[in-house]
């Protein structure tokens, strides 16, 4: 038989489970089919995203004509199969009960002190299919407890039921195969070779999928009972992967976060940053508005601060709005409107990082307003994938996992860049070596074989770092139109993609509408209920905007979520802010900006507001407030109050903003092409750098165990350069501002580049070196 699904014919088989007739796709496992009709077969080792092992034997069922009970988690249904689960088979019921009794033999049953108690598959299934009491009277096996498998993950071996979920996750999904089952018999245990840490960006997932309390996290262990927690679905605010998470809290404090099943996006997984980096939400928050009086910041009431800010902005000259890459779509949209309507300026940017005019052109031409052009699912069936200026494992970990899935299914990956990383290795990627900053050359010089194989089923992933490599984005644009390969831009931060579509960048109105286009202007003016002529003309972005602030040609600033140390010219920004007439900062934590602002408004963090993030696919990922009773205002809320203090009506309601933005359907009018930009890679050695997933980022503060899992700060050089430098143990890299000395790591690096982490302990590129990706540095063996 066949059934037709999405116009695709699927072969099916007819089977009977507990007397219920079913037609299921060929290859369906008994356990999955039973789930579909609401029959829950007990299981421990089974996990829908891992290959079956049939090890725990909890799921034994009877098949007519088969003498022995069979594991439902590994049994593929075939035509005419008649399956009886514990519901209709005494053989299955007794077999399951027997296995359950065995599982408890060496299990400590210390539920009252176990983190899993209350949400434990072992507890639950022992209650449903187990015997009422145990016949085992012997001595249980014990282990010294607990041991660390890495700094964040602890293991109580005596609780382990040897289901091998954690080890299969490590090998199959993360590709970090160092977690293994060791020893044999009842002594079998999870561990790592030579007690080296389980080095993985995804280690927290093993805690979540462990069906008992054997794996726990240092951050949650002994903190709470699951039944005391309130769980809410949320969207991760850390990166542009857009993971669905679950936030658990108790009495107003987040106790943990877990991956939420989202088959289209993160499946069942999350990275460790998304899972563990949330202490910042509560720590060190700005509590009330602050205004500057006699050079000092002091607390002020909201009305006082509003009037102060309104007056200051009204009095100042040309203004600008800088919103960092972390705003929700709705907040970014509010900034976009506030700049154009209230401040009458198009000086606006969300890219609080290295950026370029070329990038702005690229985003306008290929990204803004284009939703779901390329999706996670597309990766699995892509013919080829090209990574340019993009390190998925560090910069979009869930995209990395999906790439791994694709690679397992035969997708080939090419990575263009100066370093063949551990992540590239785990993707079995082919390396197109490029000196940092000269990616454009590498792209135009791509092997004809690779180019020839690129088609509309190929995907070019380009990272935000490409903006720092002159000519790279125009080369990507050309390669795309030449081959038909689809282009996907993957920024790092959760808010960037949404801010782009919300028009929080000079030159682009919402939905990718060019501000210079009369039709675009009138569409937006209509939605905003203003006169199209009152919309400003194209303003400044990026570096030029910061320079304008520094030079004082832009003298008033509304700034939110920007950390100057993220900018190559952060010093200029700070100097500009110091000289500016008036600076309004919207922030939840103090920063170099708030210390210099004229007025500071505290704003809500993700747990206190609803909103949405748009991930790299252009997929909207809405979330609602975890703490509904929170009194903090969203950025949009503050901007709305500020507008009204300046006598402009601006709706600050999240839902209303979302609705209005959605009504501005993506721009279908003409787009400007990316200009051909000149390629000018500096001579000599260039700097290769990016942010490691776990690093010194401010949103990771307050979670020392997570920080301890970070990859070490090193200088990576090629074997040839290592040789040339005299095989030094440490290497000093020097830029215009100063030097960084770190331990040497010999790696697959272009001979013309040197790699250091961008913002890790003892390696803060902009602050210490004063230059960025692709720029010239000098390299020397030994200390400075």
């Amino acid at each position, binding site marked *: 038989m066949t059934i037709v699904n999405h116009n695709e014919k699927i072969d099916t088989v007819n089977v009977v489970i507990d007397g219920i007739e079913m037609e299921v796709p060929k290859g369906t496992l008994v356990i999955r089919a039973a789930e579909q009709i609401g029959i829950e077969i007990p299981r421990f080792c089974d996990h829908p995203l891992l290959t079956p092992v049939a090890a725990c034997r909890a799921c034994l069922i009877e098949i007519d004509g088969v*003498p022995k009970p069979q594991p439902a988690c590994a049994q593929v249904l075939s035509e005419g199969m008649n399956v009886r689960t514990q519901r209709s088979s005494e053989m299955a019921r007794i077999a399951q009960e027997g296995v359950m009794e065995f599982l408890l033999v*060496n299990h400590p049953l210390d539920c009252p002190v176990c983190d899993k108690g209350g949400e434990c598959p072992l507890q639950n299934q022992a209650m449903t299919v187990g015997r009422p009491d145990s016949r085992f009277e012997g001595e249980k096996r014990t282990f010294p407890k607990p041991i660390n498998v890495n700094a964040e993950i602890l293991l109580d071996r005596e609780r382990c039921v040897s289901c091998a979920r954690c080890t299969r996750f490590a090998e199959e999904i993360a590709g970090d195969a160092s977690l293994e*089952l060791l020893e*044999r018999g*009842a002594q*079998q245990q999870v561990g790592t070779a030579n007690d080296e840490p389980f080095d993985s960006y995804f280690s927290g997932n093993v805690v979540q999928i462990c069906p008992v309390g054997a794996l726990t996290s240092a951050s949650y262990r002994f903190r709470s009972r699951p039944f005391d927690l309130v769980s809410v679905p949320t969207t991760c605010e850390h990166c542009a992967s857009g993971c669905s998470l679950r936030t658990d809290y108790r009495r107003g404090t987040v106790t943990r976060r877990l991956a939420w099943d989202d088959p289209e996006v993160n499946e069942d997984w999350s990275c460790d940053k998304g899972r563990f980096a949330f202490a910042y939400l509560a720590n060190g928050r700005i509590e009330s508005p602050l205004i500057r009086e006699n050079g000092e910041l002091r607390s002020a009431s909201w009305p006082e601060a509003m009037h102060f800010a309104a007056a200051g902005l009204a009095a100042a000259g040309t203004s600008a709005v800088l919103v960092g890459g972390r705003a929700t779509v709705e907040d970014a949209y509010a900034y976009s409107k506030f700049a154009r309507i209230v401040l009458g300026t198009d000086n606006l940017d969300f890219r609080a990082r290295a950026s370029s005019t070329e990038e702005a052109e690229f985003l306008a031409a290929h990204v803004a307003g284009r939703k779901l052009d390329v999706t996670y699912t597309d990766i699995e069936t892509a013919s080829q994938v090209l990574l340019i200026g993009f390190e998925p494992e560090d910069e979009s970990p869930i995209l990395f996992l999906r790439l791994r899935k694709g690679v397992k299914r035969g997708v080939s990956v090419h990575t263009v860049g100066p370093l063949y990383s551990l992540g590239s290795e785990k993707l079995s990627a082919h390396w197109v070596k490029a000196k940092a900053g000269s990616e454009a050359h590498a792209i135009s010089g791509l092997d004809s074989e690779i180019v020839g194989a690129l088609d509309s089923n190929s995907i070019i992933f380009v990272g935000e770092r490409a903006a720092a490599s002159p000519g790279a984005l125009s080369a990507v644009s050309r390669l795309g139109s030449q081959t038909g390969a689809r282009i996907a831009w993957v920024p790092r931060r959760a808010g960037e993609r949404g801010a782009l579509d919300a028009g929080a960048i000079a030159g682009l109105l919402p939905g990718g509408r060019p501000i210079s286009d009369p039709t675009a202007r009138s569409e937006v003016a209509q939605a905003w209920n203003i006169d199209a002529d009152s919309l400003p003309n194209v303003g400044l972005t990026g570096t030029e905007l910061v320079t304008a602030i520094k030079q004082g040609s832009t003298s008033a600033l509304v700034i939110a979520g920007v950390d100057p140390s993220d900018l190559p010219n952060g010093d200029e920004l700070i100097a500009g802010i110091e000289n500016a007439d008036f600076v309004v900062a919207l922030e939840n934590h103090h920063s170099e900006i708030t210390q210099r602002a004229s007025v500071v408004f505290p704003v809500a963090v993700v747990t206190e507001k609803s909103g949405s993030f748009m991930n790299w696919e252009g997929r909207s990922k809405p979330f609602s407030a975890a703490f509904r009773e929170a009194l903090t205002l969203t950025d949009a809320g503050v901007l709305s109050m500020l507008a009204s203090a300046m006598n402009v009506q601006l709706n600050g309601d999240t839902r209303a903003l979302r609705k209005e933005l959605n009504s501005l359907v993506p721009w279908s009018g003409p787009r400007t092409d990316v200009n051909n930009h000149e390629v000018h890679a500096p001579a000599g050695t260039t700097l290769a750098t990016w942010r490691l997933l776990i690093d010194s980022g401010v949103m990771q503060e307050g979670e020392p165990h997570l920080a301890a899992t970070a990859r070490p700060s090193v200088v990576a050089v090629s074997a040839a350069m290592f040789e040339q430098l005299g095989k030094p143990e440490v290497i000093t890299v020097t830029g215009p501002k100063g030097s960084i000395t770190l331990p040497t790591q010999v790696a697959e690096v272009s001979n013309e580049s040197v790699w250091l982490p961008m913002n890790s302990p003892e390696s803060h590129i902009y602050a210490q070196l004063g230059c960025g990706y692709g720029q010239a540095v000098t390299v020397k063996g030994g200390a400075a």
Partner: protein
Amino acid sequence: MKLTPVITEHWDDPELYTLDGYKSHGGYEALAKALTSDPDSIIATVKDSGLRGRGGAGFPTGLKWSFVPQNDGKPHYLVVNADESEPGACKDIPIMMANPHALLEGVIISSFAIRANHAFIYIRGEVPAAIRKVAFAVKQAREAGLIGKNIQGSGFDLEVTVHAGAGAYICGEETALLDSLEGYRGQPRLKPPFPAVAGLYASPTVINNVETIANIPYIIDRGVDWFRQFGTEKSPGFKVFAVSGHVQRPGIYEAPLGITMRELLDFAGGMRPGAELKFWLPGGSSVPMLTADHLDLPLTYEAMVEAGSMLGTGTPMIFDQTVSVVKAVTRWLEFYKHESCGKCTPCREGTYWITGVLEKFEHGNGTTGEMETLTTLCGQIAGRSFCALGDAAATPYPAAIKYFSDEFTAATHTSADEQFDPVASYVFSGVRA
């Protein structure tokens, strides 16, 4: 019935282990014959011979070979299971020590038949003497052009690798063996896919026991009819029986399948003086025990199953009246507990639990309730474990209780050593510690 030395025929020749020694008795003539015939006809011959695997399960060898997909473009492998670790089994190691070239000739013919260009011999690591003998035979065969490129001008290439195990009984289970051979921790693999389709390095692989493969040259040389004159319809051929225990002359006796235990016992000189047979196991600790009542049954795959046991490895262990069944069963379970690989719950936890309870009985501290518990625990393992090791572990107790429940009842108050003087069961019982 008479003994029929075939594999063991020239074991009195101290030079048999060398290439010249083996050749002087007609060795490698079968190979010459095989290399000029069609591989499929060899498979057919082996199928027709009815040869059944000697590793324990008795699976028809020719049928197994015929499962290997041909012309699939993948490399094929032959893997010889020489991990012999079954308690009581001692036949493969003697074969490798005394007549390694019979194995090797079988390896070359079998590889030729299944179109394998690489064969592996996975030998139990604890017997370096056997490993050395086989490695030496491989070396001599290679030097003589019997292994390598274009063997004897036939155009057939074969590499043979001798691999030493690292001391785990489970690595005798064929899929665990493959994992071990690939460098992983030896644990059984989920089937399907079966090794014949995706075995070593995910390629079609045949795994056979040493004795099975050592049969091949003789079958090819002497023919199906010759082979089938021995044994029965369902158990054709002869078998290298290794008799151990309380007999006068423990050792290797090669005889047709269908010989009775009583006859074998006679060849082994009968029980030791003054002793009386108490129980015996036809083939290793993994098969249920039998008693004197079963001595006249033919030792065939089918008759042993009918009697509630199995032929297993065909290496009978004989125990006389000095042996405590409680103690014997406890030792076996301690073995299975120690060797359980840990992968599946019933075997991992069941052997742990059962062994603890049996040790109580051994010390006279069991309870009648626990006798019942042991029975149900074995039932909770048998047929539910991942591989046959679990089934094997669930075998000794139910068989023992069938014939000797009194001893377990006695062990609720009297320890095994009080019931049976352990020294009396020593082979050299005259010698006191």
